[in-house]
């Protein structure tokens, strides 16, 4: 019995160690290598860099239009999130609060969108975006991402609205507030946590998305960071240190956001996932 218990403890610690190693190992190793020279990477791939030089990072911004990609990602992230939250905040509120004709039809259609894998829509979306004249434009990405985050945001936001007591709105109406005033002055401010959760999820979607970005853009004009990595792969083929630095530049903001907003991210993942 005692041996069994000891074995279990070893297994437990081993498992946790393995998971930590698998999640953190690649990240730390690439971070370390991003300060090395090419020769150091090839000859001493596991060792510590001789000195912490930032020249690889400087080069990464010089060789590739990394700052352009960065600006695009920030624009797509911010506006893709704002558009998604505004539209789904409005429709989520109405769907959570009111009864009207076609409600079930709408809810059904919106939740069906969950069952469509993005990959199936690649060519049709390419056609739509092209027809609207938004191919290779940041606006095209913003609209597509706002739509792609529809089911998750709708779920998170409308379940949050359902937790708000109806009396809040009733007393607002009695005080003479209009529908619009009630929504923007009363509902929006109380729903901050819900918008926080949905917003973090939507921002990560915009920031990390790859498959639509690759078919809806071309050249460097409107591409985002995940695509930057894809192209660096060949551009930096012989300059490993710079490639590593570029990878870190893409990864570090996401990790910082996560560490700052851990609670929202985790509850968002849980809420978004259950629905997905």
């Amino acid at each position: 019995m005692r041996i069994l218990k000891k074995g279990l403890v070893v297994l437990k610690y081993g498992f946790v160690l393995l998971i930590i190693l698998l999640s953190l190992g690649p990240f730390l190793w690439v971070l370390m290598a991003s300060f090395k020279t090419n020769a150091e990477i090839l000859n001493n791939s596991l060792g510590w860099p001789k000195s912490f030089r930032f020249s690889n990072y400087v080069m990464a911004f010089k060789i590739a239009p990394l700052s352009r990609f960065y600006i695009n990602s920030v624009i797509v992230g911010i506006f893709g999130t704002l558009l998604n939250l505004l539209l789904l905040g409005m429709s989520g509120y109405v769907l959570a609060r009111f009864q009207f004709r076609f409600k079930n039809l709408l809810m059904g259609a919106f939740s069906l969108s969950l069952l469509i894998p993005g990959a199936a829509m690649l060519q049709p979306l390419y056609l739509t975006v092209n027809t609207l004249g938004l191919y290779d434009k940041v606006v095209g990405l913003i609209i597509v991402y706002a739509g792609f985050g529809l089911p998750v945001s709708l779920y998170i936001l409308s379940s949050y609205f359902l937790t708000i007591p109806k009396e809040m709105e009733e007393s607002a109406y009695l005080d003479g507030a209009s529908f619009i005033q009630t929504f923007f002055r009363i509902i929006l401010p109380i729903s901050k946590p819900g918008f926080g959760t949905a917003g973090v999820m939507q921002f990560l979607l915009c920031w990390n998305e790859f498959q639509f970005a690759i078919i809806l853009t071309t050249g460097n004009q409107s591409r985002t960071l995940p695509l930057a990595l894809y192209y660096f792969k060949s551009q930096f083929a012989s300059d490993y240190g710079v490639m590593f630095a570029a990878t870190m530049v893409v990864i570090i903001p996401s990790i910082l956001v996560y560490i700052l907003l851990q609670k929202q991210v985790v509850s968002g993942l849980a809420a978004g996932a259950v629905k997905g």
Partner: protein
Amino acid sequence: MVRKNKGYITLFLLPTVVLFIVVYAVSIVILFGTSFTEWSSGRKPIFIGLANYIQLFTDDSDFRQSFLNTGVWVLLQSTIHVAIGTVFAIILNMKEFYWKFARTVYMFPNIISGAAVGMLFLCMLNPDFGAVNSIVRLFGNADYAQNWFMDYTTAFFSVTMTWLPYAAVVTILILAEIAAIPESLFESARIDGASELKINFYIILPMLRNIIGTCVILAGTSMLQKMDIIMMTTGGGPGNETMNLPIYIYKTALMENNFGYSNSVGVFLIGFGLAFVLLCRNLFRIGSSQN
């Protein structure tokens, strides 16, 4: 009140409905409609009935391979990864040794973009300078050093490994579910003299049936999307060893310019996903009450 608000209800719903039509509804109509046509960029689609589907199933070994790979990955992801995620949730729930640190770090690969995860693994498994080969050589077994992503024998396995960290979502969901089990249940079990191990096996696990079923669906369907990591690491190669349906759709549509055919693969992908979801719902009796 409802009558007064009718205009506002429409006003509040309309933008989302437009967004839904532009992104989803139009896509689905195009997808189904053109899957029965021969169609390439700049041409008009020509109706050819079921010819695309017949070709898919009778005369397309690339499609068969992509379908097979996708199927195997769905199976692996929805079994092994769910098992790993569940075990880790139960360990983390004991709240021992740096569990907060472990929980945080464990989430990293789920936060960064798939392209970046692919890049990290591409570097780790690089034949010339990658950490994995360096470690293998360090222990003296240079024979085991490989070009992991480009070797026919290891490519599939290597790509499968890159998805292990995604078990974290399972862990999060299950931790949330465990937290919802009333504390009194554990207390009475402890009073009756049950060990921690027994509590885990006989109390916690059976109560997780619903959520584990949901995780199986989630983990499985997530494999119907995976494109970024494969594009970064193998591009579907060597040969079509690591090709899956999304990559195949991308290739036929945008590289071979064969829109009609690619959309018939899209229709198939949706059907495959639906079948998988229905199967799991029945298997885990999701939605029915406990036991």
